[in-house]
């Protein structure tokens, strides 16, 4: 809307065929990109061009395109989700870039994030981490009245901060060590802060950390890059809380 113009961008994009061990960078030029369009819409445009010229379009993941589902995720010019903080790739707009700029686009890289095709990687490791305790073990049925559990607003707000994680994997992608600590700690934190989470707190912390390690993520060296790229600005205070929970678990086990 404001000062819309059309720009040209040059892309260096990671392309990797399915079942191919190694990928490579390919260069494309996308012309007539409205500065109002989103980054992914720019890639849509590239795909339209590729399709029309008989080439195979670039595969990348996206779904809600409003920053909540966590499906999209690209490393743009070396930064997970691109140059703007506190947003997911789908919320990034082309007005952030200059006419004629060259953009390097890579997938989220980590050993557990096995490449599937082009910019799409497998993040099922996150599901497996959650399956080891990212919940309160309660069956659907007739629990007590919701207001029977009093939760201080402060704790509830902190729990919500942690719970806002969208599971995109940018924390892993940005971490120099490819650690999944921010992701894992966000879930552990949410329940550590709530009374409902207490009965199985010990089990949760140790099992989820074990699974995280088992998946082959790197270790956390407190670089804090995860926090800087997190679309939901989840802080590394959660990682510290996860560690406390883990030590408690270790001492109680």
């Amino acid at each position, binding site marked *: 809307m404001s000062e819309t113009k059309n720009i040209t961008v040059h892309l260096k994009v990671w392309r990797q065929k399915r079942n191919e061990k190694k990928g490579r960078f390919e260069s494309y030029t996308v012309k007539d990109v409205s500065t109002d369009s989103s980054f992914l819409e720019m890639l849509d445009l590239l795909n339209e061009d590729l399709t029309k010229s008989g080439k195979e379009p670039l595969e990348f993941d996206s779904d809600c395109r409003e920053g909540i589902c966590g499906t999209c995720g690209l490393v743009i010019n070396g930064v997970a989700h691109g140059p703007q903080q506190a947003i997911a790739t789908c919320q990034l707009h082309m007005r952030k870039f200059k006419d004629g700029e060259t953009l390097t686009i890579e997938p989220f890289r980590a050993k557990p994030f096995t490449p599937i095709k082009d910019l799409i990687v497998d993040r099922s490791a996150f599901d497996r981490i959650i399956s080891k305790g990212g919940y309160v073990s309660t069956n659907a049925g007739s629990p007590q009245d919701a207001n029977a559990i009093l939760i201080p607003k402060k704790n509830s707000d902190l729990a919500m901060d942690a719970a806002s994680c969208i599971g995109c994997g940018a924390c892993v992608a940005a971490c120099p060590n490819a650690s999944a600590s921010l992701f894992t700690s966000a879930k552990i934190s949410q329940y550590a802060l709530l009374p409902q989470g207490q009965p199985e707190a010990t089990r949760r912390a140790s099992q989820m950390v074990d699974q995280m390690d088992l998946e082959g993520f790197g*270790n956390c060296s407190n670089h*804090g890059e995860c926090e800087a790229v997190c679309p939901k600005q989840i802080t590394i205070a959660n*990682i*510290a809380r996860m560690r406390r929970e883990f030590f408690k678990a*270790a*001492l109680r086990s």
Partner: protein
Amino acid sequence: MALTSSMLFSSVGKKLLNAVSGLTLLGFILAHLIGNLTLLTGNSDAFNAYGHFLIHKTGVLLYVFEYGLIVFFLLHIITAVSVWWDQQVARPTSYKKTASGGDTSKKTLSSTTMIYTGALILVFAIMHLITFKYGPAEAQGYTTIVDGVEMRDLYRLSIEVFLKPGYLIWYIIANALLGLHIRHGFWSAFQSLGLNHPRCTPILYKLGIVVALIMGFGFVVIPAYIYFKGGVL
């Protein structure tokens, strides 16, 4: 049941061990620095008295400290190398381009070079031991008398060593690396111990810079002072 070994060597456990050993070693070098300051008095007796105290007055405790230090050193090294190794295998294909995500990041030259600064500090520590602990002693004529007891003249040795420009430069480099190592290591240790607080952590983070500067400069000031004074203090 207390901490099991599997828990200790989990990702979180390793960082705990690394942090505890790191802070202990920091405590040691802080004490070491304070002791070394006696060199600056220019009074050979003061420094040698400090040495005398450590060697002859602490008894069995000295051995406890020495072996303890070795254990913590090893623990720090093993966990650090292990963390570093995890990192090596966790990203088989590296990025073509990397950049920092922005303001809240704590990624610094310090944080990304911990393993290298650590390794060089280790080399320095070994050479430092060779120079001083296992260097010229009574047999080579470095003797003095403190409290009526004949002992090794560490003061003379120190002054002589620090008058060599090459050693001074190496010493300056090593301690700058130590400072760099502490700059991230200090606050990071607290974070690894799970100690994070909205008010305290920013202070700890800045305090890390102060501690790094004290360590980096403190250890350098002494030999530099000796060198530029030509050994006559």
